[in-house]
């Protein structure tokens, strides 16, 4: 839930996705494989407590713990919280209770969702049982949720060797976070100028260095860079590399040259692709200018201006 932002500020959706592939230890593997098979396993800690969900190391002594036990798929709610407005990716898309459930035979509680008609149907101490997901893969979500249960309990912990055919050895933890990103004052001004095909940096009021692109602060002086300075459009290649690996989703033929370019008047180099010249003829000191494409908000690449190369002394401080 985000509040409205002022209309004059640049902003754009930003999606961050990070699917981590995580390997499982022997205890986690047995637990998650067990869920796939409809069995809930716990682990005995050094002092004989049964931990569900189980961990690889004793939470008090840090000893390796491997003694698995099967516990019931029924249990008791130890605390709860009614969630009237489920959020995306939560276990249920209708109102539900978050619950900590101590399964029969366990000494610790498991966090999950409880499908109940409303908050009046939920209380601490109520009896619940696992509702298994229809399709199970070896993940905590193999428990679809808990549901109220009035039947008999599941009894105490029973030793279990944790052996299953085709054990799960890893999980892929998918995650996606959505943002609306705003670049701030200095970068907004830079991006807006670029869309008018002007490159506008900012000068440090203290050391007078011109930053392109500006980030709002001079990293040497630690002060705001407030004076706007138009630079370029031409500049000098200060250094470069030849790219031979084709980037995913980038429609540029290899090999091509990627260069640091000190635009005239800038106190540091920015980077861009060099085109309009064979890749093996690009050199330090080459004079280049931006090439804009129709509707583009930034230079597509830089090409030679045809001027004589710049003297090394003219750009050596900017390498």
């Amino acid at each position, binding site marked *: 839930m985000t509040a409205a932002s002022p209309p004059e*500020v640049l902003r754009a959706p*930003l999606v961050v996705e990070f699917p981590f592939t995580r390997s499982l230890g022997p205890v986690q593997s047995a637990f998650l494989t067990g869920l796939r098979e409809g069995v809930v396993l716990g682990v005995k800690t050094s002092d004989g407590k049964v931990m569900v969900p189980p*961990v690889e190391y004793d939470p008090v002594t840090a000893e390796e713990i491997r003694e698995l036990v099967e516990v019931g798929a029924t249990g008791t709610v130890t605390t709860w*919280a009614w969630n009237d407005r489920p959020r995306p990716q939560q276990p249920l898309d209708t109102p539900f209770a*978050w619950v900590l459930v101590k399964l029969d035979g366990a000494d*610790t509680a498991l966090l999950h969702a409880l499908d109940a008609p409303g908050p009046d149907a939920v209380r601490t101490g109520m009896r619940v049982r696992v509702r298994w997901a229809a399709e199970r893969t070896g993940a*905590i979500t193999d428990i679809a949720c808990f549901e109220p249960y009035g039947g008999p309990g599941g009894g105490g912990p029973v030793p279990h060797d944790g052996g299953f055919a085709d054990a799960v050895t890893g999980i892929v933890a998918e995650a996606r976070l959505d943002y609306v990103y705003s670049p*701030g004052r200095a970068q907004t001004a830079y991006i807006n100028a670029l869309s008018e095909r002007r490159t506008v940096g900012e000068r440090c009021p203290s050391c007078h260095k011109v930053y392109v692109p500006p980030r709002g602060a001079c990293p040497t*002086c630690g002060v705001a860079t407030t004076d706007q300075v138009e630079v370029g459009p031409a500049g000098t290649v200060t250094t470069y590399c030849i790219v031979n690996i084709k980037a995913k989703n980038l429609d540029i033929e290899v090999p091509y040259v990627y260069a640091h370019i000190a635009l005239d008047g800038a106190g540091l180099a920015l980077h861009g692709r060099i085109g309009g010249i064979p890749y093996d003829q690009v050199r330090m000191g080459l004079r280049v200018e931006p090439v804009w494409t129709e509707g583009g908000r930034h230079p597509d690449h830089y090409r030679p201006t045809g001027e004589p190369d710049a003297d090394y002394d003219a750009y050596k401080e900017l390498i």
Partner: protein
Amino acid sequence: MARYAREVAVVAFAQSDHLRRTDELSEVEMVMPVLHRVLAATGLKAGEIGFTCSGSSDYLAGRAFSFTMTLDGVGAWPPISESHVEMDGAWALYEAWVKIQTGEADTALVYSYGKSSPGSVRDVLTRQLDPYYVAPLWPDSVALAALQAQALIDAGETDESALAAVGARSRADAEANPHAQLRGPVPQGDYQVRPLRTGDCPPVGDGAAAVVLAAGDLARQLCERPAWITGIDHRIEAHSLGLRDLTDSPSTRLAAERAGVFEAPVDTAELHAPFSSQEVVLRKALGITDGVAVNPSGGALAANPMMAAGLIRIGEAAARIHRGASQRAVAHATSGPCLQQNLVAVLEGDPR
């Protein structure tokens, strides 16, 4: 004072106004004025600081390596001695305090910031949870706090009206704090996740804070009344929520013991309790009695910039000592779900 090798004090504190959004500012643009103010309070220039340490999380604004951008605001080039924690700035302060204790620095600049407005912080915070058993369920930060609140209610330690009073008191006190995001009465509102209502939850917003630490006589030169850190410690609970007694905070109590909180009375407690129910837990763990001013700044229920709200507790407690309103204060910072990790510091002024 003999607890540690060196006397170290908070000699200055500054914070931004805490706002729901700051779209017009990048992170460094938000942080820089706070850095300038805290340095100005000491008369030190950035180049005279011995060690700089910051606390922030890239996940909040979705901006990779944002802390390297905010370092620009310090004037970090040519390279200065600096470090960063992906935690609340209170832990950055701890690192800086250790650095001074080792003798490698005599002064430190500590800052932290959080820009939660670009994202959905309730969902973002699920990504810090156990990736095997908990994170796949996406239990948001309010839901987890609500489980803790219900456990407290079940145990008879509080009720909904007592929780509402915590929020109301915090925002009433925040009327005297020009930086707070919520000042004065706020409707208690609907359940966010029952039993927690809107008024039991912290505001979501953007903000930054900074302190300067200094050792010994230098602290006395830089500050008329230094806030000496006479004790500081941090401890953590077991990882699994279902293993913990959510009605108590043994890690806070242990950190407080190690920091010497219980060796003498305190007059002020700045507690990092983003949810009203968490203040109940912290009061118990720290043995806070009735005469103690709890969160006179308004606390995290009035302004909770992620990654900065803990450092602000230390800063607010120190500022109270600086202006002579406190003699001995306890400051607390927390991180993670349901008070997972806790830092406790004792701050004292020289006797008057």
